[in-house]
């Protein structure tokens, strides 16, 4: 049992448990707050996978910005007032079944595939490699994404603006 494996299982547990809270909690605020440990779990997974830069970005963006954004919107819409209302719709049971089956199928499919390990290793300093890549082969993607960011920024503001 290497430390890696223990870490993996611990992080997986965190991720999955908080994920369950996110999807199943009748209290929407609890769901939103449980997103944070979920994202932090994912961050740990990234570190295990030698994606340090990605882990940092994950914390910043996901656990930081998006979770806060979600909490904002929850509070702006109904906040604590709708906490007693039913949160599950009428396809609850079937949804469980479908999700479980889907998971089963995916896991079965994955387990029956022989995943080959490629040779080689990741570069030691991944942030640098990522940066080089963005300004090199993946420049188009980089620029495109920035435009998408701009557009969504403008769009979100316009949509959410109060009507005068």
């Amino acid at each position, binding site marked *: 049992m290497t430390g890696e494996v223990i870490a993996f299982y611990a992080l997986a547990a965190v991720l999955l448990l908080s994920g369950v809270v996110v999807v199943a909690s009748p209290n929407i605020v609890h769901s939103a707050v449980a997103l944070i440990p979920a994202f932090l779990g994912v961050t740990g997974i990234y570190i295990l996978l030698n994606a340090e830069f990605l882990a940092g970005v994950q914390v910043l963006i996901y656990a930081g910005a998006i979770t806060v954004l979600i909490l904002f919107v929850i509070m702006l819409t109904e906040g604590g007032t709708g906490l007693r209302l039913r949160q599950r719709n009428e396809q609850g049971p079937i949804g469980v079944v*479908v999700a479980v089956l*889907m998971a089963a199928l995916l896991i079965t499919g994955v387990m029956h595939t022989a995943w080959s390990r490629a040779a080689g290793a990741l570069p030691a300093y991944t942030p640098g490699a990522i940066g080089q890549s963005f300004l090199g082969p993946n420049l188009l993607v980089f620029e495109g994404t920035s435009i998408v960011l701009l557009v969504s920024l403008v769009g979100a503001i316009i949509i959410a603006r109060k009507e005068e």
Partner: protein
Amino acid sequence: MTQNVWLIPLMPLLAFVLIIWRGDRLPGRGAFVSIAGIVLAGLGGLQLLGEVGMGARADLTYRWVTLGNHPLTVGFVVDPLSAVMAAMVGVVASLITIYSVGYMHGDPRFSRFFAYLSLFQFSMLFLVLADNFLFIYAGWELVGLCSYLLIGFWFERPSAARAALKAFITTRVGDFSMMIGILILFLHTHTLNFTEVFKGIEAGQIGGPLLTAAAILVFGGAVGKSAQVPLHVWLPDAMEGPTPVSALIHAATMVAAGVYLVARTFPLFILSPAHNALWVVAWIGGITALFAATMGVVEDDIKRVLAYSTVSQLGYMMMGLGVLGYSAGMFHLITHAFFKALLFLGAGSVIHAVATNNMKEMGGLAKAMPVTFWTFLVATLALTGIPPFSGFFSKDAILLAAYTQNKALWLIGTIGAFVTALYMGRLMWYTFAGSYRGAAATAGGHDAPGGTAHGGGHPHESPRVMTVPLVILAVCSIFLGLAEHPFGRFVRFPGVEEPASNTGLLLFSVLVAAAGWLAAGAIYRWRIVPSTALRRWFGPLYTLLVRKYFVDDFYGWVFLRAGWAVIWLAGAFDRYVVDGLVNAVGWLAGRFGWFLRSLQTGREENYLLLIFLGVVVIVLVRLVR
């Protein structure tokens, strides 16, 4: 004429086409064209008879179609049998057509009547000249059609319309049986030509019980067309038609077609084992002869008495053929055609004068209508078998043949002769003797809704166009009897011999007929035993006779009600099963559509669920396979 025998039916056919096409604009409103057609055909028939008498024979065949390796030929036959029939039909039909000019005077559908008459004449001549089952069946159906059209000529009368339908449907039963018989014969001999079929039977292609069955089935057609028991019910009702129609179709010609058919297909009956088919013919004929005669005694309608008489006499003809009296049966057919036509035309003359069919309202017409009376008397004497009139010779030839073959049939025939004289005597006494019992002048008669009768009050003789044919027919009824032996030599079936003459039998028959006349006089004229007393003493018998032995009621119950049940069943099947299936499909489509529509909820979560459910299902199915 022998080689061009097809000209004979062609004349009336052309007349029919012309009258249908131009109708009222023809000279005489179609009557002259019709008369011309049939007179030419009649002359042709007489010439044919002369030629055949000189020995001419012919069988004109044309190849029609080839089935496999069996060619089907159709055509016309010229032999003594067809020649006498053609001549008789031509002469009698000519006289009746001339008579109709006077009788149907003033009828709004005058030209159509003559068109139908011409069509019938064509059909009948076609039938008697046919040399194969196909032509004879075609002619058979056509005469049936014309009978329907002419019985229901005054179709505004519901009774006439019903009678026409009854005639057609009843004869249809017979026609169906005949068709089955023809098909059985065709299946085994692969030909429809008479001579070929008979050769095939002799060669053994069909034999034993199957031949008897086929013969009886073909006889079934004759039973229908000649109104034998049990298909006799249509003929009395057929009297709804105009009297010339009754004379032509239901006395002289069409009903004789059944007898002609048996004569033409005689080998079928002779060759059936133990003459079984022949005995069937004889017994049905004999039973019909007596059965119908008894019903004629209680009828008050003059035409109906004559109708029952016709049924009875046809029974005699069948019986004659059945007891191997081939020439006797055919001879009786010829003589009967003349005197029965005369009787009907005479009755028509009477009806024309007194505007009613009911004999109880007539009387004393002998003085008022002398020509009608004397010719009617001649015909009645012929019918009842009083010498030296023609009926005596022909009827006694039949009784002689019956005596030599089967005494029981002879007895039935003789009793029938007594009853025949009884009802004809009754008819004569009621209609012509005594004093006139009719009402004062009434317009519109029982017989002619067009108002062509003159009404009661003072009956008078009919116009010459009606009486001259009566006289001609009377002359024939008197003198045709002399032709018995020449006829016997002329129209005969090889192998069938005439029985030796029996004077004692002849004398006995005459006595029986005279007894019948005297009995009629005793009951109806001199009132020694009044008919009312007889009616009281023989109450149940009287009811049986008046209700026609309940045959019509029986048919109504069994066949008509069964028919209605089948109709209802078919209707219900169509409504509930067939329509039900179609409606069910539509309803199903609707329900399915509603179900599919409810899938479109407009809600994203439902769609997403279905997508993932679909993915899961597809993968699972793929895994399972």
